[in-house]
């Protein structure tokens, strides 16, 4: 008989006790894997949504005239427009110029800077639809740069000519407009060719048209903002500080509010899942210690016999820790299956829609590592107690 077969036989000796311990550890491993899988997947899905295309930061004139507050791009924070001073009167041209702008030559030279992959000028403005007092924010941007502003066309296509416009989903619902409908403001008529979403409620209330069209309408040559994406290998932070150094009249904004909001969300989910994981680990740990303590005390007499027949402390330690490790290993495998299975169920029941599932080797190793660690640590104290039993006391034990 091999030592390891003795260990395995001992585990299956008291089946209900072993099964309880296995369930405890398995829950721990499943919790780590399942929750880790969900948070990792959420994070990577969000990351993907944010990094493909989206700009790293935006460049703005360093003073904003009388124009609202702050004005980050994609503005979750009240965005620089819609201040009541922007809408004067109710008839005739109601355009508000984009306030202070960045001129074309500055835009050109930023586009030429090393480390800049894309620098797209955008112009912001606002108007009222003809015959109404309904305000509409306008964004001028070249159609190939739409993704820099997180614009996703959910219906139709982007504008290709100066009489075409795309409408934010909220605006489209509010105005009761859809693809093919016309939109008239400043006595000019545009055809709605697409509906977009940005995930930002302010932007989704507006409309987007080509930069040159909006520049013509507002009699501007400049842009109100430049969206910059750093090239691969260039740090956006250092690029942004280089720009503010070179152009003292410009400032940069890296606070991508959408990103921050999502990031906060992920952090909350992460800390929540950590809390649950810790509780699961605690339960599993207590389970291992309790099982092995009971197992050792049930076998006090037997451990006395093992000592009487010449087993040393090390071998008794190895026996008990070995048992708890094998228990933990079996439990880990079961836990992994439960964890992956639970996530599969969530996926197939469409609870995790839109989340890209990222099962990484790291995550599996983490769960395996923690479960085995529990097995060893949970076994150490009971094993130590067993190895320290006085043989005569143990043999007298009833």
């Amino acid at each position: 008989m091999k030592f390891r077969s003795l260990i395995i036989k001992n585990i299956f000796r008291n089946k209900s006790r072993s099964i309880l311990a296995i369930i405890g550890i398995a829950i721990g491993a499943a919790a780590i894997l399942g929750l880790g899988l969900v948070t990792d997947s959420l994070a990577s899905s969000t990351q993907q949504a944010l990094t493909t295309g989206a700009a790293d930061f935006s460049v703005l004139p360093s003073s904003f005239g009388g124009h609202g507050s702050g004005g980050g791009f994609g503005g979750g924070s009240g965005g620089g427009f819609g201040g009541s001073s922007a809408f004067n009167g109710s008839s005739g041209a109601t355009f508000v110029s984009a306030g202070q702008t960045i001129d074309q030559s500055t835009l050109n030279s930023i586009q030429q800077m090393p480390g800049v992959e894309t620098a797209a000028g955008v112009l912001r403005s606002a108007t009222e639809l003809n015959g109404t007092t309904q305000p509409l924010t306008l964004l001028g941007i070249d159609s190939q740069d739409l993704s820099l502003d997180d614009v996703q066309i959910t219906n139709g296509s982007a504008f290709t000519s100066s009489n075409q416009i795309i409408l934010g989903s909220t605006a489209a619902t509010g105005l009761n407009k859809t693809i093919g409908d016309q939109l008239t403001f400043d006595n000019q008529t545009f055809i709605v060719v697409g509906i977009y979403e940005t995930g930002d409620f302010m932007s989704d209330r507006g409309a987007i048209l080509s930069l040159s069209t909006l520049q013509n309408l507002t009699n501007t040559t400049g842009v109100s903002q430049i969206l910059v994406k750093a090239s691969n290998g260039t740090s956006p932070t250092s690029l942004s500080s280089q720009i503010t150094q070179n152009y003292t009249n410009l400032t940069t904004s890296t606070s991508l509010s959408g990103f921050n909001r999502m990031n906060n969300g992920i952090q909350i989910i992460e800390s929540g899942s950590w809390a649950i994981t810790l509780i699961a680990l605690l339960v599993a740990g207590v389970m291992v210690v309790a099982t092995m303590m009971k197992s050792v005390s049930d076998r006090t007499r037997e451990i006395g016999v093992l000592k009487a027949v010449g087993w040393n402390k090390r071998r008794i330690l190895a026996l008990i820790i070995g048992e708890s490790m094998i228990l933990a290993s079996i439990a880990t495998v079961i836990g992994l299956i439960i964890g992956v299975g639970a996530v599969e169920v969530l996926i197939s029941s469409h609870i995790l829609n839109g989340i890209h599932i990222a099962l990484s080797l790291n995550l599996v190793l983490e769960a395996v590592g923690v479960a085995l660690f529990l097995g060893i640590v949970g076994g150490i104290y009971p094993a130590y107690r067993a190895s320290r039993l006085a043989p005569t006391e143990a043999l007298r034990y009833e």
Partner: protein
Amino acid sequence: MSNENIVKIENLIKRYDQAGVIALDGINLEIKKGEFVSIMGPSGSGKSTLLNMIGALDQADEGSIQVSGQNLMEKKDFSSFRSKEIGFIFQLHNLIPNLTASENVQIPMLQTNNSDEEMVKRATELLGSVNLGNRVDQVPTKLSGGERQRIAIARALVNHPNIILADEPTGALDSKMGDIILELLREIHEKENMTLILVTHEEYVAKKADRIISMMDGKITSENCTL
């Protein structure tokens, strides 16, 4: 039996402080290599305590005790001494219930670096010699008390000990089964020239030994040769 002393005990004292008991109160005893000694005495007289001292399961407080040349008063771990020198047989067989007869016999060999085949071979051989050749793969719960005690004897012999310490090995058996076990122990003692120290309550059992040691209140009251 040789003239060499395998056990040499002088003024050995063992106290159980918490209980205020003096379990061994100045024991002097010499046992020759290959001798068969039985220890008798009323309950609580210190028989098991003395046996545990000889087997290094516990340590005395005062005096000296030498077994197989080992000073057992040293402060150290005597597990390898027990493994090499001593074979214990208890009143209750103390077998591991989920292991087969063969596996139970092999347990002491796990400590002594034997191959799997050697262990199986030795266990089979010993179970054959205690007439359990047909019960090798049976678990103890399906065996009779006498059969279990024979497995325990095989287990005690497995590492070729020099001394067998048996604490009332027939105490839990009926007299017929007790006789069989006793006869078996005597045979082994003679054939292998092992030293056999046997604790018993029963006079007729004790009389099979070369010498009977009587104890009372932790002291040896008489040493009688049976011949």
